[in-house]
């Protein structure tokens, strides 16, 4: 049972790390704000959740599992909210880029 939990936590941490790396790669590589947001938003919540679950499995019941759970809940609430507000604000100022439009010079000096 203990070994199973440990193996499960390793799996969670591994998948979490990989999806975090995907988020990082996405935000680094994709061409405009919306695609980047798409890459970061999904994998960020997913990876964060998995890493925290992996940590929880490793602490067991007598560890600080409540605090980890609180961090998990906060992250799962705040991260999508920020994505939503960010996308909403960005959409009003700058329409999404499609394959055929050239990227306008934006508000950079």
């Amino acid at each position, binding site marked *: 049972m203990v070994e199973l939990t440990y193996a499960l936590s390793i799996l969670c941490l591994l998948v979490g790390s990989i999806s975090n790396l995907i988020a990082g790669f996405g935000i680094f590589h994709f061409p405009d704000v919306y695609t980047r947001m798409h890459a970061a938003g999904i994998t960020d919540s997913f990876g964060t959740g998995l890493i925290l679950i992996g940590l929880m499995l490793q602490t067991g019941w007598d560890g600080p599992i409540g605090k980890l759970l609180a961090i998990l809940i*906060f992250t799962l*609430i*705040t991260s999508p*909210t920020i994505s*939503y*507000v960010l996308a*909403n604000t960005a959409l009003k100022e700058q329409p999404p880029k499609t394959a055929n439009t050239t990227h306008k010079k934006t508000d950079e*000096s």
Partner: protein
Amino acid sequence: MESYIHIIILCFLLLTSFAIVRMRDLFSIVMLMGVYGLLSASFFVLMDAVDVALTEAAVGIVISPLLLLSTLAATGRYEKKKRQQPFLALIVAVFTGALLIYGTLEMPPFGSADTPANRHVASYYINQSYAETGIPNLVSSVLASYRGYDTLGELFVIFTAGAGVLALLGLKIKSPKKSRSTVLPPSSMSRHHILRIVSKMLIPLILLFGLYVQFHGDFGPGGGFQAGAIFASGMALYAMIFGLQTTMRVFSRAWLEFFAAVGLLLYGGTGVVSILSGKNFLDYSVLSQSPTDAQHLGILLVELGVGITVASVILLVFMFFASHMTKVSE
């Protein structure tokens, strides 16, 4: 491995600071200042300075960027290009930096236990203060008891700076309407319903966490300065989402000014009580029979005073900057 993580964070900090030097768009620079605060707070965590990390997080991530942004709204977003190339400044900076780095070669190596800084009074604090005060968090006990005069002075500086901001931006914050039924003009954030609801859920938690940091500061990381900054950040979020007017129904300007003074008076009053009982200023041993209980009570009162003053001064300053923005836009 663990001893190299802080080097990575320091490299991130260096990159950020060079990016700040290079950029001309002040909005982006303020954003990078937030990153800078976040990274330096992480560095403080790595250096075991947990109390400092909490304070730097609240101040560096939230309050400092907010104040800078409200100023930018009044002064404009772009920095103008200078007419001449600042070679002289570059030479001065490089020369001074080279001298200072030459000076660091004489410094004791990083992390060694027997440096002059770690030998004198610090070992006394580490070995004796738990027996003398009964408070596990050494930072709290040193802050509020051993170096109580120092902290009182710092608190006076904060109070004076707040008074200075009030004097400089001597605008009237528009007082809220008397009748409760008046429909308030909505803040422009209020059309995001999801944001409103999420904030309604989170703000009580943030304020609760501020109180936890305040009163748990004797046993874990925390204390008055951290709690004040966190509490003020929570109220700043409330002001941003629900509007300054609504916030001022809860904390009006007069009450905040009153509380800023009350915290300082609580601190000073604790000292006066010990003078009147025939001991030195801020000698807590008069407060109770047993010495550790007296220290506990004294530190609790003093930290409470610090927390109240810091929270109300930061909130007051934030409100003045925010209402200044509103005035500019009219």
